[in-house]
C-alpha cells in the first residue's frame, strides 16, 4: 500500500490508534507487516487468536484492568540484555528494570493463562517465576529491587559494621560536644552546630578553645562546631573503611549477579519477543472491539463483504447526525464496477472495501458483518485528486501514471480506481476507461472501479453494482439542510446491476445544492439535444 492509498483509505488514522502498551510492542509495531499470499494458515491462526482474546475479554471483564495494568508497567530490558551479553555488569537501576520486566511479565503470563488458556505461550508461569527468583533471593516475591542481604551474607556483615562505625562516630562526636557543653552554656542546633551571638560573654573563650572550630562568622554571630578529637578521627576512619568495604562487596555482588544471570539472557530475549507479540495481539483486538470486528475467512476467488463499514467515515457521519449505509459487495478477479448518482456514496464504498481488505491483510478482525477475502500482493488506490505538482502532472496525468505503474506489476493485487478518465476530454476519457476496463477484465487482479461512462458497462465479463439512488426527488429550489435532504432521499445501498436503465440525478442534485432553475432548465435542453445527436454519454448522473 503506497502513501496515496493510505491517505485515501484514512489508514494513518487507523494506524495511529493502533497502540500497543509496551515499549517492545511499539517497537514491533514499526516492523509490522501484512500477511502475504501463501500465509493463509498463519493468517487464520492469527485471527483465531484475536477472536479468542476478544471472547476471553468479554467472558472475564474483571481480569482486563489487571492485565492492562501489567502491560502498561512492563519495562524494556533490551539494553540491559545487550550489555549482559557483552559481558558487562549492570547497575542497581538496570537490575530493577530487568526485575520490573520479569515481575509484570510473570503477572501478565499468569493472567493470560487464566483468561486465554489457548493463547500460544513459549514460556509458562513457572519459567517466568524461576527467572524472577534469581533477582529476588528472599522467599516472598516483590516488585522492588535492592542489594538485599540474601544475595551475599557479607552484605549484611559489612552493613552492620558500617552501622556500628556510624554509631561510634555519633557517640564520639556527642562525647566531644558534651565536654564543651559542660563548660559553656551552649546548645547545638539541628545541624550539630553552636550559633553564638557576638555579644555573648563567653565568645572569646570559645574562640580560643581548641575543642571548637569556627564554621562561619557574621557581624551578628559566630557558628562553631566541635573540633574532631583523636577518638572522633579514628571512628571516622573506621566508618570510611567500612563504607569502602561495603561498596566493594556491593560491586562484587553486582558482578556475580551478572555472571549468574547471563545464561538467562536467552529467556529474556524470548520473553521480550513474547510480550511484544501478545501486546500487538491485544492492541489489534482492542481496535477490532471498536468496530465489532469479524474474522475475515480465506477466499481465493473474491472479496465478499456483507455489512462493511468504514469506521472513521461512519464516525464522521454520526457526528453530523447521519448514519453509514453498510456496504454489501463481491469483488471477483477481473473488474467490478460501481455506478450511480453523484453523492451516492460510490467512493465511500470503494474506500470501505479498500480499508476492510487492508485491515484483513494486516491481521485485524474487520469492520463487517461477514467477510471472506484473498490475501493479495498489493492494494493500490487511484482515488481522489492525485495531482503531482512536483512532477508537473495534472489530475489526469497523475492518475494515468499511477495506473501505468500498476499495470506493470507481475503479481496480482487489489486495484481501486475512482472514475478513471474523468479528468480529460469526455470522449477520450470514456474510450480510455473502457479499454482499461477491458484490459483489466482479463487480468488476475481484483479491480474495483467507480465510473460514469456507459462505455465501460459495455465491456464484457465485468460485474457491476449500482447505488440504489434517489427516490422522491425534491423540488430543486427547496431550501434547507441539503445534506439532510439528500440523505433522506438517497438510498446508498449497492445493488447488482443487470442492464436496467439508470436514472440521471446530477441535475436534480445540482438543484438541491443551489444551482438556479434557469441554468438547470438550459442544461436539460442541452442534454435532450445532445441525446438526439449522439449515442454517447454517461450513466447515473
Amino acid at each position: 500500500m503506497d502513501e496515496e492509498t493510505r491517505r485515501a483509505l484514512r489508514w494513518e488514522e487507523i494506524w495511529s490508534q493502533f497502540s500497543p502498551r509496551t515499549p517492545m510492542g511499539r517497537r514491533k509495531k514499526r516492523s509490522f507487516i501484512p500477511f502475504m499470499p501463501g500465509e493463509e494458515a498463519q493468517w487464520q491462526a492469527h485471527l483465531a487468536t484475536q477472536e479468542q482474546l476478544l471472547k476471553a475479554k468479554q467472558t472475564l471483564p474483571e481480569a482486563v484492568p489487571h492485565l492492562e495494568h501489567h502491560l502498561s508497567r512492563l519495562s524494556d530490558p533490551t539494553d540491559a540484555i545487550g550489555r549482559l551479553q557483552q559481558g558487562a555488569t549492570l547497575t542497581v537501576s538496570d537490575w530493577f528494570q530487568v526485575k520490573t520486566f520479569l515481575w509484570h511479565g510473570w503477572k501478565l503470563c499468569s493472567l493470560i493463562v487464566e483468561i486465554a488458556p489457548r493463547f500460544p505461550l513459549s514460556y509458562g508461569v513457572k519459567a517466568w517465576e524461576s527467572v524472577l527468583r534469581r533477582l529476588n533471593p528472599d522467599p516472598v516475591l516483590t516488585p522492588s529491587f535492592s542489594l538485599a542481604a540474601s544475595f551475599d551474607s557479607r552484605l549484611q556483615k559489612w552493613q552492620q559494621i558500617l552501622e556500628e562505625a556510624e554509631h561510634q562516630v555519633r557517640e564520639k562526636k556527642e562525647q566531644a560536644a558534651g565536654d564543651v557543653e559542660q563548660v559553656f552554656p551552649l546548645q547545638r542546633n539541628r545541624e550539630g552546630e553552636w550559633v553564638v551571638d557576638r555579644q555573648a560573654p563567653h565568645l572569646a573563650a570559645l574562640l580560643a578553645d581548641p575543642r571548637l572550630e569556627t564554621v562561619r562568622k557574621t557581624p551578628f554571630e559566630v557558628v562553631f562546631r566541635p573540633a574532631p578529637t583523636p577518638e572522633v578521627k579514628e571512628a571516622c576512619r573506621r566508618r570510611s573503611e567500612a563504607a569502602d568495604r561495603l561498596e566493594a562487596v556491593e560491586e562484587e555482588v553486582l558482578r556475580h549477579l551478572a555472571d549468574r544471570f547471563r545464561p538467562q539472557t536467552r529467556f529474556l530475549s524470548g520473553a521480550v519477543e513474547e510480550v511484544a507479540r501478545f501486546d500487538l495481539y491485544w492492541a489489534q483486538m482492542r481496535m477490532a472491539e471498536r468496530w465489532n470486528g469479524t474474522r475475515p475467512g480465506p477466499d481465493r476467488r473474491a472479496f465478499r463483504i456483507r455489512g462493511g463499514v468504514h469506521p472513521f467515515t461512519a464516525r464522521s457521519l454520526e457526528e453530523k447526525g447521519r448514519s453509514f449505509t453498510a456496504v454489501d459487495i463481491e469483488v471477483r478477479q477481473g473488474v467490478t464496477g460501481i455506478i450511480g448518482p453523484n453523492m451516492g456514496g460510490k467512493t465511500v464504498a470503494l474506500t470501505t472495501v479498500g480499508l476492510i481488505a487492508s485491515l484483513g491483510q494486516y491481521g485485524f478482525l474487520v469492520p463487517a458483518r461477514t467477510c471472506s477475502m484473498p490475501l493479495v500482493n498489493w492494494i493500490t488506490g487511484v482515488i481522489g485528486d492525485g495531482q503531482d505538482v512536483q512532477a508537473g502532472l495534472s489530475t489526469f496525468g497523475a492518475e494515468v501514471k499511477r495506473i501505468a505503474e500498476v499495470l506493470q506489476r507481475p503479481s496480482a493485487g487489489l486495484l481501486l480506481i475512482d472514475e478513471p478518465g474523468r479528468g480529460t476530454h469526455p470522449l477520450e476519457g470514456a474510450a480510455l476507461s473502457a479499454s482499461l476496463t477491458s484490459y483489466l477484465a482479463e487480468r488476475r487482479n481484483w479491480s474495483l472501479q467507480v465510473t460514469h461512462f456507459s462505455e465501460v458497462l459495455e465491456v464484457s465479463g465485468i460485474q457491476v453494482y449500482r447505488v440504489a439512488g434517489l427516490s422522491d426527488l425534491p423540488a430543486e429550489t427547496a431550501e434547507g439542510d441539503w445534506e439532510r435532504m439528500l440523505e433522506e432521499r438517497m438510498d446508498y445501498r449497492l445493488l447488482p446491476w443487470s442492464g436496467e436503465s439508470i436514472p440521471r440525478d446530477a441535475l436534480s442534485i445540482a438543484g438541491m445544492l443551489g444551482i438556479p432553475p434557469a441554468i438547470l432548465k438550459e442544461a436539460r435542453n442541452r442534454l435532450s439535444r445532445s441525446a438526439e445527436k449522439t449515442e454517447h454519454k454517461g450513466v447515473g448522473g
Partner: protein
Amino acid sequence: MNKGPVRSLAVIGLAKNVGKTTVLCGLAEREAAVGRSLGILSIGVDGEEWDVWSLKPKPVVMIPPGCLVATAASLLDERGGDWELVESTPFYSPLGRVTLARARRRTRIKLAGVTRTEEVREVIARLLAQGAERVLVDGAYDRRAAASPWVTDAAVCVAGAVMAHSLDGVMEKMEEAIRLITLPEAKDPLLRSAAEAARVGGRVVGIRKGRLETLPFTSLLLADRVRSMWTAGEWEGLALPGSLTDRGLELLASAANRPPAVVLTDPTRSFVSLTALRRFYRKGGTLSYLKGVRLAAVAVNPVSPDGYAFDPEEMKERAARICAPVPVFDAIRDQAEVLDGINQCLSGG
C-alpha cells in the same frame, strides 16, 4: 483551601539561594525522627550538577532511612546499595527516567526534577501509594507550580538574606510575596463559577449584569482587543485562566468604568506587584483566588551566600509580624521542637 492533614507540602524559595534545601532537609529529618514515612521529589529544571541560575554546586538532600524519593535512576546508582528501587514512572527528567526508591539507610541524593505539573501530581500520588504519609516537594525557584493548591496541600515559603542587601529590602520583598500568596479565596458564588469556567475552558470569563460571558481570549495579553471589549460594557467581574501581571491590572484599572473583581485560579498565577495591586484596590477593584494556598509556615535565613548577614533575631521577629498568624522559623537556629511543632500543625489540620 485544604484545612485537613497535609499529605503533600511544597517548599518554595522566594529567591535563589535562600536555603530552601536546608529547610527541606530539616523538615524531613524531624518527620523521620517522629517515625513518619516521607516521600520527597523535586519540581523544576533540576537535574544538573550545577544550579543553572547561580552556577553554584547544587546541594544534595540528606535522606533518612525509610524515606521515599523520586529521582532519575542514574542518580540512585551513585549509591546503589543505599536504595530499594520500588517503581518506575513513565516520566523523564533531563537525567533519565524518574524512579521511586526507598532509602535502606541514611544517605544523600540529588533530586532530578519532574517538570510538568500533572506529572508532579501523579508522582505525589504514587509516593503516597507506596506508603509515604507525607510528600515534600522541593520547588525550584522558577517553578511556583509546586505551591499550586492543585498540586500540593500546603506550602512553606523560604525567605533569605540573599533577597536584598538590606533587611528592609528583604522584608519588603517578603511581605509582597506573602501578601499575594495569602489573598483570600473568592466567596461570591458567581465569581467562583466564573473562575471555574475559566479554569476548565481556558478562556477569560466575564460577569456582566449578573451573567457569565466567556470572552474570546485566553489572557489579557491582547491589550487592544481586551480594551475595546472592556470599554464596551460594564463588567462586574473577570476570571482569568492564566496569569495576571501589573500590565494586566493597569489595563483593567485604566478604563473609565470601575475596575472589576478579578479572580485567578490560584496564587501561583499572580505576578503583580503590591504597589500595582494597592492602586487597583484604591480604584475599587479586588483580587481573589478560586483556590488559595495554605501557607503552613515561613522559614527565614539571615545569612546570604554572598557574604553578608542580618541579625537573626531581628529578621525573625520582623518576619513574624508580617506573616502572623503564619508561624516563622529559622531552620538553622531554632531547636528541633520548633520544626516538630510545625510538622504537628500539618498533621493536625
